[in-house]
């Protein structure tokens, strides 16, 4: 096919070498000459040709030269990046990420304010109807828990090692956090403890990597660390060993722990409220606040190690251990990628992704991925990004026309493989799971 075209016209060609990380789609790495006018589709055809694929609907590929996606023809890409046509160009290729084809809607009673998908096929969601819900990966409601006095703002799974005794924590507008137990066998949610110390609504919560502590950020401008070691795993055991903690027996018919003291607390002056916290590595946690600052905290002393000043208020922060980058969602429609290892403030920002039309409400790195993340916005769209290119890979925009807002997103892996799906929730009161496989 390529040769045919060459015969037709005398075209300039470049020698390219195709490499890939995926052994399933690997082709020969001997350099071959391809015409420079080829774009993504043409290069995909070359790959198919080399692989001798005869299927009609073979998957398209994406191509990178030196870590940059080819979004134009080879010719312009070479010109724009001032590469030499004389050299052998190494093109990395991978399977193109396509838009999810299937979507599962899970109805809530009110706006879905937060969602968190664990890596064990379960989703927990918090809603403005004061309830927390646990869903399986197929979108079936397993259980509902109530107890908050105002809307739930954030939820997060507390992973247990053997996944037998699952628990999660929720943060709410009623200034409290609650730790819940999810009993898989009985499909029940029971409140284990309520954490009261904040004087403003708790906006964000995250669990330490060793699953022993919780960090919470509140609109009162404080970040608090809570220990969950002493919370009994089962609500039944609660009354017996509550010697250390105060018991609240008067009001609640169900006895739950009331923890009124955090183990560590820091008040951030002039921050106008902590909107997001993130705790991905053992010794460092991140916070984002209304005053445009991302702060890095040393966990042991809860002292600020670094501060990154951004140009807008933070709404969400996500950190990936794979590449050590911070993704931050802002109220100026932008997602920014930071490298906290860079000391220079100007160098720290390595990418800014601008495609949303209004406030970005959440950003979430794809687990086990160095480059991929998803974001949601008040404009009703969910966007899937590769940080190597400034254009989102795809946009899920079926809420855009209805003026609904997407407030939260998370990743869920179904079937325990590396296949992750986006889970989102918004003002349409629906939890949406966007499956990108077509067979299920």
């Amino acid at each position, binding site marked *: 096919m390529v040769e045919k075209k060459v015969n037709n016209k005398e075209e300039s060609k470049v020698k390219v070498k195709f490499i890939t990380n995926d052994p399933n789609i690997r082709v020969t790495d001997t350099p071959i000459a391809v015409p420079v006018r080829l774009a993504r589709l043409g290069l995909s055809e070359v790959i198919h040709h080399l692989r001798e694929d005869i299927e009609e609907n073979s998957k398209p590929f994406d191509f990178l030269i030196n870590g940059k996606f080819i979004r134009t023809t080879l010719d312009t890409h070479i010109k724009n990046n001032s590469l030499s046509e004389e050299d052998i160009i190494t093109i990395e290729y991978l399977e193109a990420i396509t838009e999810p084809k299937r979507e599962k809607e899970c109805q809530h009673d009110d706006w879905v304010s937060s969602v968190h998908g664990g890596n064990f096929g379960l989703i927990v969601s918090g809603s403005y109807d004061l309830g927390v819900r646990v869903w399986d990966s197929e979108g079936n409601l397993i259980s509902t828990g109530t107890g908050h*006095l105002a809307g739930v703002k954030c939820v997060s799974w507390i992973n247990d090692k053997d996944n037998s005794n699952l628990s999660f924590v929720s943060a709410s507008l*009623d200034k409290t956090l609650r730790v819940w137990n999810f009993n898989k066998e009985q499909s029940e949610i029971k409140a284990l403890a309520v954490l009261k110390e904040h*004087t403003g609504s708790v906006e964000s919560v995250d669990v330490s990597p060793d699953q022993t502590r919780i960090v919470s950020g509140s609109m009162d401008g404080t970040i608090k660390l809570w220990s969950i070691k002493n919370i009994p795993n089962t609500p039944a055991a609660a009354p017996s060993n509550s010697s250390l903690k105060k018991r609240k027996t008067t009001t609640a018919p169900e006895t739950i722990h009331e923890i009124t003291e955090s183990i560590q607390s820091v008040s951030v002056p002039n921050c106008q409220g902590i909107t997001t916290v993130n705790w991905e590595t053992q010794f460092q946690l991140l916070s984002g606040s209304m005053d445009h600052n991302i702060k890095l905290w040393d966990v042991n002393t809860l002292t600020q190690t670094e501060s990154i000043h951004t140009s807008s208020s933070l709404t969400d922060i996500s950190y990936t251990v794979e590449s050590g980058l911070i993704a931050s969602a802002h109220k100026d429609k932008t997602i920014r990628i930071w490298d906290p290892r860079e000391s220079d403030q100007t160098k720290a920002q390595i990418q800014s992704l601008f495609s949303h039309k209004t406030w970005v409400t959440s950003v979430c790195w794809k687990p086990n991925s160095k480059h991929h993340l998803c974001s949601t916005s008040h404009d009703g769209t969910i966007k899937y990004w590769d940080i190597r290119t400034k254009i989102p890979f795809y946009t899920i925009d079926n809420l855009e026309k209805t003026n609904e807002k997407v407030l939260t997103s998370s990743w869920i892996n179904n079937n325990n493989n590396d296949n992750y799906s986006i889970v989102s929730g918004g003002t349409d009161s629906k939890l949406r799971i966007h499956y990108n496989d077509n067979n299920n």
Partner: protein
Amino acid sequence: MNKGNKQTITNKPKVATPPVATNKKTEKPVVPVKNNIPTKPVLNNKNNTAVNKKENEKPVLGKKRKDVEEEEEEEDEEELSFGNINEDGFSDEDEEGDDEEEEGDDDEEEEEDEEEVATFEEDTGINRALLENEDSLVEYNSDDGEEESINSGNISSSAATSGAEEDGKRWSSDPNQFYDSEDSSEDETIVNRIGNIPIEWYDDFDHIGYDVDGNKIMRSESTKDSIDRFLDQQDPNFWRTVYDKVNDKKVVLSDEDMQLLKNIQNRNFIPGFNPYEDWYDPGPNPDSIHPLHNAPVPKRSFLPFGTDEEREIRRLTHAIRMGWIKISHKKKEKKNNFDLWGDGTNSEEKQKGIKRIPAPKQRLPGNVESFNPPEEYLLTDDEVKAWHLMDPRERPHNFIPQKYKSLRQLPIYNKLIKERFERCLDLYLCPRKLKTREFIKDETKFLPKLPKPQDLRPFPSHEELQFLGHSARVRSISISPNGQWLASGSDDCTIKIWEISSTRCVYSLKVENEIQSVAWNPNPLYNILAASYSNKIIIITPPIYGPEQNQETEKIITKPNTESTSEEQQNKSVNWYNVTDSTLKERGVRIEIHHPFTVKNLTWHYKGDYFSSTSPEEGTRSVKIHHLSKRATQTPFRRSKTPNQVTRFHPSKPIFFVADQNIIRVYDLMKQELIKKLITGCRYISSIDIHPGGDNVIMGGYDKRVSWFDLDLSTRPYKVLNYHKMAVRKVIYHPTLPIFASCSDDLSIHVFHGMVYDDLLQNALIVPLKILKTHQSVNDLGVLDIAFHPKQPWIFSSGADSTIRLYT
């Protein structure tokens, strides 16, 4: 010595001595200077020199002394030098009236002299210096090749004195010239040349002096013995013979001399002397001791010889003389002729002053204009009729060609006066002046220099979010002090509270009437919202954080037990009630305050314990101040003339701002007195706001204007902003950022940068930043209320289109 030389030259004009006949260049008649002047005694000459020197230069005085010494000691030398001079026969140069070239010569020579002086001054021996100098003089003069003359009164006086440097002396190489001044009869006699010295000095010698050639003149008469003298008596002329001591000679007086003596004896005039002759002014006398003028000595004369300027002149003159520089003596010819028929535009000389447009060239007269035109130019009757019918501007000529037999028969031109008048009108109304119009490329340079809006970020610039849920116009909005909640009151009789970050409506309360005003308590400790509808104010503790309220809120909201009685006594018109209805209580409504009239406006004191309300319908007692913790109400102004509209508390001081329809009054609450009265010039004030600094006030009026008052500056507006097209509804300051905004019924929100400086001398800087216009008009009502986020540069607006919008 040199100076003397120079002076000699420069002083010549003063002496006004005409040059000697031998002067080739000037060829002026030979008129010896001192011929006319009576012979001066020898001693007088010295005075003369001194005076002249005094007149000219001071340094010369020293020289004169030297001269005297020389005279005393070195007579021989002097004689010799004089002789030399005479032999060499140099002549003085011309007077100053000469050509420039000659002056150039002089200059050069002077230069040489100067050099010589420089060497001579090093010598200590006066004699030698004198000698050398005179030598140089000789050189100088001989080089010149010009003749000089010594015009002295007589031989003795001329011999007597001061030498070359003496002023007024004329040197001449011509002996005839020299003797011209002497009596011709004495031509052959040998004249003693010893000069003006006592003759006794020669008493011991056998000679009495020297003749002009330097030979000794031997004694003759004085050596005679008495016999010879006796024998001389035999001479018949003895009685009239006198002895000339100087020349050692016997002179026989002539008859004229005798006559002269007789006349002297008889005190008669000398014969031939007319004492009554007409006196004439011989001009300035060079010998006059006293100067005729009192002009100060020029400063230049004190300067040492040879300034840079002089050097330059010398260099130039030398160059001219050597022919290196050529001067053309051609004078520019004046153009006396000009192009009569030209239009004057090509003239080389540019006209100064007003530039005029040249007059258009007139068409030369043709046959039609002739008094005797050819027949074909004359109009027929029809053509004359047509001419009269034509519009005057369309006529080919403004006259009808007529034929006369001779020029003599031409009548007088009857339109002369009219034409002159029109010509004058033309000149007056459209003068052919070339107007230079300035082309202004950049008109913006005339605008005041304001910083660019881009540099004044952050400020709200675009609509970000909408809060949808109200079903009627939203009259009032308020932002909670922590910036998390937005409260709104609407004509659909609901109060709603929204979470700003998610636009979630978290609270909604339905009441009986349209909400007039909502206001969050500005103290972040309290979670209290005040709202007014019809004649009620309700205090709400919204259950946005759950049904339980924090301690501070509970403490201030619960009724104090003790003061219940006094409160009732204080106010009869205003009543406080605890809400007992359980459903309302569940919704957070805690207190109702009943007023007699509709409460329009609510505003909190910054500490959150006091709030003020206005109900303009109440008239003179419209303003009320409520004390929340005591549940008390005051009516501070009982006799105000006009109903007050809006009130505001000072952000940090106990100062209270009350606005009625057109005046803002500033009261001190502690002293209970009026501090200021701001005259707004506005017909109907709709809203006022106080700058967080407290010294500036903005006011919006229903007559479309927004005024900025600087309280320190004046009671009149510092700036009036007339940008809105319809009634201004609300003006607000940002609590922390230098921004203020106004909203109007024309649907627009104007955002301004309003920087107030700490420096009292610097006026506030107001820069328009942005017009936000996204609301829709309903029943001619636009944006009804705006509110700033307490920290972020966000502005919230509520409009008649029942939406609340957030601009970031």
